[in-house]
């Protein structure tokens, strides 16, 4: 802001990219998490989201430090290890017009936070839930996370004897309504997915393979840049369309492009790559995930989308105004009512 020597281009609401920045990153150079921060900035800028309309949440870990590094003008809460979803749930009820972005790690969400991760999905709280997945505990210096592949060897830890947690599979099992996987080494797709997630009316889980260059980036490990680059398979080309009026599917594309409408008039445009994949079909989603597992692929794209399931707020009969702005009169029942209450007490 005010620093006019920097990029002065503005978006439709008159903000520069600078207005979406956070504090300088203290993560390692090259850490995948930095790419995530960058794409959140890009997506919010592109979608003309006012930073004041966003609230950021995170747990504990390198990934969870990340919210400091984007959207400084937003409120945020860096909570406890594994407990971001509950914090976000309570806070978002305060003003449901706010857009929640939760940023967590694979340790944070798939290990200590497994329960909260699963349950927030099930409740379909409107929240962009990004899991920066590096297969390792970065901040505590390189222990196995539950997403680490079986038989992976790490310096001080030896060999990982357990089967990995598949975050997308977990989100599916938990009935999440938006399940995607992205790769920090593929920023464009990541950005489009974040955009779509920001417009999804429910919990949008994005499992981002986000390499830890310091403790876990050997070429043969499935959470490394090299492996990702080699094994990534986009299930489709995805683009988010803020205004569906704009969609023109030309003849050439017909049959290869599919539009999925979101709740607010925006759309996701999906362009076939290879096979036919319908992200609104749960069967296909499960099969696709299993298949990727067996064939050693880093499958990326929008794996599943359900726009019909109602968001969590729906069943709460909330007022139009934010709950946290209700005046005291609305909070304390009138004097007269107490007599009635006392009469109930028997």
């Amino acid at each position: 802001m005010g620093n006019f020597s920097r990029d002065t281009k503005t978006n439709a609401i008159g903000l520069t990219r600078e207005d979406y920045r956070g504090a300088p990153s203290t993560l390692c150079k090259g850490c995948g998490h930095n790419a995530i921060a960058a794409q959140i900035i890009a997506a919010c800028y592109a979608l003309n989201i006012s930073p004041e309309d966003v609230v950021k949440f995170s747990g504990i870990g390198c990934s969870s430090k990340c919210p400091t590094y984007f959207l400084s003008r937003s409120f945020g809460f860096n909570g406890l290890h594994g407990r971001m979803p509950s914090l976000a749930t309570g806070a978002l009820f305060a003003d449901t017009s706010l857009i929640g972005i939760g940023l967590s790690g694979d340790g944070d969400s798939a290990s200590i936070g497994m329960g909260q991760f699963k349950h927030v999905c099930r409740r379909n709280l409107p929240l962009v839930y990004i899991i920066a997945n590096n297969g390792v505990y970065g901040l505590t210096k390189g222990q196995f996370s539950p997403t680490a592949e079986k038989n992976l060897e790490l310096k001080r830890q030896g060999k990982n004897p357990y089967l990995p947690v598949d975050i997308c599979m977990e989100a599916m099992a938990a009935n999440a309504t938006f399940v995607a996987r992205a790769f920090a080494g593929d920023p464009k797709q990541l950005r489009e997915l974040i955009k779509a997630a920001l417009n999804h009316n429910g919990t949008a889980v994005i499992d981002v393979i986000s390499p830890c260059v310091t403790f876990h980036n050997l070429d043969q490990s499935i959470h490394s840049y090299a492996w990702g680059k080699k094994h990534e398979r986009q299930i489709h080309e995805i683009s988010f369309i803020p205004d569906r009026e704009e969609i023109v599917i030309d003849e050439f594309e017909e049959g290869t492009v599919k539009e999925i409408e979101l709740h607010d008039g925006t759309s996701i445009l999906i362009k076939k790559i290879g096979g036919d994949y319908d992200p609104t079909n749960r069967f296909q989603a499960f099969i696709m995930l299993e298949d990727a597992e067996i064939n050693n692929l880093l499958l990326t794209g929008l794996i599943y989308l359900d726009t019909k399931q109602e968001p969590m707020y729906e069943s709460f009969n909330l007022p139009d105004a934010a709950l946290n702005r209700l005046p005291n009169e609305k909070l304390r029942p009138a004097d007269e009512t107490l007599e009635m209450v006392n009469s109930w007490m028997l």
Partner: protein
Amino acid sequence: MTPVQVITDESLSAPYVNDFCITFSTVNGSGSATANLTVLRALFKMGIPVSGRNIFPSNIKGLPTWFTIRVSEQGYLGRLEKDAVVVAMNQKTILEEADWLVNGGVLLYADHLDLPRMRDDIVLYPMPIKKISSELEIPRQIRTYVENMIYVGILAQVLEIDLSKVKEALAYHFKEKHSALDMNYGAVRAGFDWAAENLVKKDPYRVAPMNATEGYILADGNSAAALGSIYGGMQFSGWYPITPATSLPEALIEYLPLLRTDEETGKASYAIVQAEDELSAIGMTIGAGWGGLRAMTATSGPGLSLMAEYLGLAYYAEVPVVVWDVQRVGPSTGLPTRSAQGDLTFAHFMGHGDTQFIILIPGSVRECFEFGWRALDIAEEFQTPVIVMSDLDLGMNHWLSKPFEYPDEPIKRGKVLWEKDFEAIEERLNVLGKKWGRYLDIDGDGVPYRTVPGNRRIGSSYFARGTGHDDYAGYSEDPETWKRGLDRLSLKLETAKEVLPKPVDEKMEKAEIGIITSGSTYPAVEEARDLLAKKGIRTDYLRIRALPFTDEVPAFICNHEKTYVIETNRDGQLKQLLTLEFPDLARDLRKLSKIDGMPLSAAWITDQIVVKERD
């Protein structure tokens, strides 16, 4: 049918009116609760002071359970250790029941139970429940439930309980369900009539109408707490079921729609979420508190233990939140359906690192209501967790009480800045060459100004965290900054002392010894003081209602040669905290504590003090 025994001892036949204890011994899950409550309510409606205690097992059906009604002309509400009248419906415990009867007491028992050899100093009334029942038209699937009403009728006859009041009590219970009312009242009537015809009264117990409950209510602490919170403007609760706290959030769910639905829009001004566990319940609630909602939750021991980490965060990040700890017997799962005051030191020192929590301790259902709203005010005023410590006895039992009082203070939201306020404070600070900071102590009272998400004013946002932070909420590992931050938190708690509920004291002329207690032990202590006075031991009394302790506490201790600290735990936890705070006075404190799951009785307190004083 065993014949009614005739008691010859004269003393026993002198009438006892309105001053004894009735216990119903049944099997849980058999539907006796309605019957027992009906008796309680009928007595209340007769104008007689009563309280009702449920002593139940930690299971759902088939185990012994007891409901005890204390009838007390003088209005004593504490537990009595001995029963005068027992209604025995459980084969398994019938011998035990008899053991608890006073000399000359009455045992009413269902005559299909095997009656073992009995002491011969009690009155036995067999009740042909099955027979009477068989003559009534009751659908099979609810027969055992309705049968309980028969003993209500018989008891009404024996004790002279006003049948019309019984009917009123039933009407209250069944509300619009007239046929249910009729059927149940029919059973009452049948029992009553049978007794009138067949039962020769041989015992000295009876009740007589009074005028002592007019304007009073009968309530449990958990409902009171829920209602108080509702009047306190509570807006959010993440909760997880646990005995004996569950009925608090369930009361929220019941009453909120009635009291807090907007008349114009029909919209709710609150949200209640059943969480997946206590870690999540407190997380949600703290999230809401941070978001600017009046937030609270309720739990019991095991849940509180699980909340330790999150409450530490709320303490350090300065998030207002209220936690009701409805205590049961610990450690561990302990006795989930029994009462204790055993979480006090834990709550005080909860969470790693230097923490300190404001603790409120209500001593009556009316105070549960009051602390319901007050706790929310205090939490928001001081931006800190407030732990309200109730217990099973207070929370789940039925207490006679003056009606709940409408809050006599406006809702206090503390130093929250919305857009306009923020602008104003920015200007004010501007003049001083300063900027607003979330943790900046502008007023020198340790309490900073806070903003909440949704405030769209640029510059009003901040990034909250449980890691070290400076006045501007910036991440900091700077030693001095850390130290200053923690010291300010101490100062804040000092400031808070001023608005915390002061202890309640009651004096007796020429009292030499003092009694300090807190919470649900109040009625037993009140009664014990009268008993002690009769024995020539006159006592002053102080009931602590908040921590940190305010100045009245040491003053009280100072003014007495000796002060008994009475509580329901093993280690004398309140005494421990008093010792810690006022070591110079500790030598004058005497531990008087017991943990067996039962509320203290006045008799026990009296005995203990008498023995100690006479030593």
